[in-house]
């Protein structure tokens, strides 16, 4: 199971806890993880990435294994630790405004 950690506002919106577990078939990428996340929780459609272009919203970041994966393409495989469920994919609302 893939683990995804959501920011608090999206936890409330989706009615879930901090960690969401998802079944994701290989390859495990931003696109496939977010496809599974939105399929399981349709309230999140459009809140993390654009509905049409599938690009992340400007003030969203993707962290995993102490690295920033935000600017990788949506089809780049995420680290093996994420794919195996050992480490979570963190969806972060960027710090802005103090």
């Amino acid at each position, binding site marked *: 199971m893939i683990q995804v950690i959501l920011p608090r*506002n999206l936890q*409330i*919106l989706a009615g879930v806890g901090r960690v969401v577990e998802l079944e994701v078939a290989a390859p495990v990428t931003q696109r496939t993880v977010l496809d599974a996340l939105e399929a399981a929780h349709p*309230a999140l*459609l459009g809140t993390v990435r654009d509905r*049409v272009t599938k690009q992340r*919203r400007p003030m*969203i970041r993707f962290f995993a294994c102490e690295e920033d994966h935000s600017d990788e393409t949506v089809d780049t495989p995420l680290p093996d630790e994420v794919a195996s469920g050992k480490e979570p994919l963190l969806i972060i609302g960027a710090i802005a405004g103090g």
Partner: protein
Amino acid sequence: MSGVRVLVGTRKGAFVLSSDAGRKSWKVDGPHFAGWEIYHVKGSPADPDRLYASQTSGWFGQVLQRSNDGGKTWEAAGNDFRYDGPTGTHQWYDGSPHPWEFKRVWHLEPSLNDPDKIYAGAEDAALFESGDGGQTWAELPGLRTHATASGWAPGAGGLCLHTIVLDPTNADRMYIAISAAGVFRSDDAGKTWRPANKGLRSNTMPDEDAEVGHCVHRIAMHPSRPDVLFMQKHWDVMRTDDGAESWREISGNLPTDFGFVVDVNANEPDTVYVIPITSDSHHFVPDGKLRVYRSKAGGDDWEALTKGLPQKDCYVNVLRDAMDVDALDPCGIYFGTSGGQVYGSADGGDTWNAIVRDLPGVLSVEVQTLE
């Protein structure tokens, strides 16, 4: 027993204030959608338990919420607001062309007789319509593609469609207002539009009485007299008696005619309320005094209403969607401030009380009168 429900949108969530018809004792429920900006919450006139809320965030975008039980529980509805067809450009603040981009929904206007039908006014300016309770949305593109649209420019809050007024006697007629394009009227249920700004003068434009470009902040109608509209423009309070064919100024003796809100007493169509704000650079009330001004003559002659409102050291603002009236007799008037206070008057404005004092900054106030 009848009662009143006040729906409050704030910078950090929504609140529902409720009272019986006496309007003395209030229950405060919320925050709903804590942490999100709630630009607007409004109930269906056809089914008061059906509420809609525009929930927005610079981080997470636009969410549309719906309640079927008067705000006790909510569910996310559809948030796919997609412009219909190619989007061109509008003017940017410096006059350069700027691409049209969807940012948020400012205002929700449910149909007068169908709980599942609702209009949404967006930034960048566009009008959307849903016929299935907000699950799916379609743009009414005749407005955004109007021949003048490439010349529309944003106000300080953005290029926002913030006011939608439906004519209760003519299902095909509606008015919208855009900052800073002005008022537009449709006589075919939103398919086509024409500017309705004759009589407005704005010194922010090279041609002061141009067909479009006016920063209209709010328009209000009494349902018994749909051809009479009142307007708070950026500067100037205005009135039309002919369905916005022409406007005349009614600022009269107001201490300043800048402001955002305007509303009409539910029982007296010529009793109008505004809250003067110092200026466009000083978005707070004049002289440290929070005063509602009432005209019982449909404008020109205004009296300050101060009983129960702070009359020293007060520097709040009241935004364009943050005043409404109930339908009881005497009429109740309600408004929310940038300081998080929601004030109410149960006697047409003669006396005021703070229903709640310490909410996040208030963006919108809507009132439901419950049977």
